[in-house]
């Protein structure tokens, strides 16, 4: 079970060039809008045709420009969950799900009965009982998504592609539907690919991650590894890191952060090609006295979010335009912002990320 992709495609003055080898499991594709992540998914499903390259899923060649192979989407058996679900508006829930049924559709005995039984089974499994005769426009967003999932899964696809499945939802519904989706996907034996611009979604659903920017795959690998060691400055930004400084290498485990005006010890070995250091705002720890890796704290700005205090921190040694974000979880809503702001912040060596600009 594996996917191997190497494709190129020009569209709207933009060039997509993606190379990806992935083992089995759940693969996330994270990127800003317009980075080509949905286009990549569409090429795998066969909805869009790459200009050149090849796509192999589970050993089956779906597309190969050199050998002139381009299977129709119908022949690929790859499920695709559209962002707006793309339910057929003139069909009922039952009929929609029936459209995904592959197998004998004609009236030969057995075929019809088998189909009806299977549709009933999927209606049960996706908790759509009582909605069989409803039209998509009569359903809530969550129900629509379940119908789309059932319709996709009834055809037993070898692989499923989810295109920003939660981007149209907000708040509570999103959390509920993400949990439902994890439940539905639990027993699915095939591979999954999820396109998203939310790092949290990727983290929740995927074991592996590919980061995309301007039509290129930046980096891919095991998801925790990528969040811990993004290796590239842009990759670190995409995974949500906000604090960066240019560096000067001192020795194998020490560097000078130019923009922060501080000498830092790091756990990882500093390679010759490292240009930046970064740290996530959540990993900085308060400190009472000046030690190694500690920044004096001067709060210049403060943002209060629902469950977090966010401070923008400066000190006289830092470059004029620089500041560092520090995120601190709240212990209660009444907690004051200036309560517990320490004189120093420690940047733990094990959490410092060594990055290359390109």
């Amino acid at each position, binding site marked *: 079970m594996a996917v191997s992709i190497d494709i190129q495609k020009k569209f709207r003055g933009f060039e997509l060039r993606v190379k990806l080898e992935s083992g089995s499991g759940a693969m996330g594709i994270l990127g800003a809008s317009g980075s080509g992540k949905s286009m990549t998914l*569409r090429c795998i*499903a*066969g*909805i869009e045709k790459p200009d050149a390259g090849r796509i192999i899923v589970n050993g089956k060649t779906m597309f190969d420009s050199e050998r002139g192979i381009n299977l*129709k*989407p*119908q022949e*690929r*058996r*790859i*499920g*695709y969950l*559209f962002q*707006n679900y*793309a*339910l*057929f*508006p*003139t*069909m009922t829930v039952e009929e929609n799900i029936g*459209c*995904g049924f*592959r197998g004998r559709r004609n009236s030969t005995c057995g075929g019809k009965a088998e189909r009806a039984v299977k549709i009933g089974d999927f209606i049960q499994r996706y908790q759509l009982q009582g909605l069989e005769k409803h*039209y998509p*426009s009569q359903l809530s967003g969550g129900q629509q998504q379940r119908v789309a999932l059932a*319709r*996709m899964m009834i*055809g037993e696809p070898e692989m499923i592609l989810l295109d920003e499945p939660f981007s149209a939802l907000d708040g509570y519904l999103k959390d509920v539907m993400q949990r439902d989706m994890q439940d539905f996907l639990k027993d699915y034996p095939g591979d999954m690919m999820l396109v998203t611009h939310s790092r949290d979604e990727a983290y929740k659903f995927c074991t592996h991650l590919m980061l995309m920017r301007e039509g290129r795959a930046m980096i891919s690998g095991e998801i925790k590894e990528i969040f811990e060691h993004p290796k590239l400055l842009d990759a670190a930004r995409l995974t949500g890191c906000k604090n960066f400084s240019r560096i000067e290498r001192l020795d194998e485990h020490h560097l000078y952060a130019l923009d922060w005006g501080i000498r830092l010890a790091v756990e990882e070995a500093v390679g010759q090609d490292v240009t930046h250091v970064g740290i996530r705002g959540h990993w900085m720890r308060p400190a009472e006295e000046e030690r190694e890796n500690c920044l004096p704290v001067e709060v210049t700005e403060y943002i209060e979010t629902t469950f977090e205090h966010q401070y923008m921190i400066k000190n006289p040694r830092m470059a004029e335009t620089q500041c560092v974000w520090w995120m601190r979880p709240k212990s209660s809503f009444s907690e004051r912002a200036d309560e517990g702001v320490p004189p120093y912040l420690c940047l733990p060596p094990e959490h410092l990320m060594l990055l290359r600009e390109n």
Partner: protein
Amino acid sequence: MTEFLQSINWSPLWISLKTGLVATVIAFFLGIFCARKVMKLHPTARGILDGILTMPLVLPPTVAGFFLLLIFSVKRPLGSFLLENFDWKIVQTWKGCVIAAAVIAFPLMYRNARAAFEQVDVNLIYAGETLGMSDSRIFWKVVMPTAAPGIASGTVLAFARAIGEYGATSMLAGNILGKTRTVSVAIASETAAGNYGMAGFWVAVIILISFVIVAAINVVSGRGMKTKRWM
């Protein structure tokens, strides 16, 4: 009154309805076919072909009649070909009525069908493909039902245009009572002959039919509109 009704030769009404029906069937399939084909073309080619196909709608029907005469005259290649191989004469026959009406009604069908197809979310088609539905099944089960209100109103408009056709019909098919005289042709010739009573009767018939058609469009396009209107 009864005397007047008895004196009426009803053939123009039957010819009009028969012509309208056959011409609408032709325009229906041809319109849908062309709409599908044109949509798949490159934008430049699409623009040009769309312009050509819409011409009968914007040109005076007599211009269409003129070209049809040029094409189907037995002295011309196509006209003589049809006559020799199929024994089909188009000029001054009922077939001429049908062809004239179909040509004039075609753009209405074509444009409405295209507009209706363009409204169909392309992701629905892609979804059908990834689900393994065949292209023809996607077209008949997904695209057509979704586009149905637009297709239906196009069909009714095409029918209305076809039964009311005058200019091209009178040029291509002429005015032979019982053969090619439709209601609209009858109105013109009765008026020209000073028979205002008879002309008025046919006018009333046409008004009645047109009203029924417009009402039918409203019913058809009002159905299937589940979204809120802006007014």
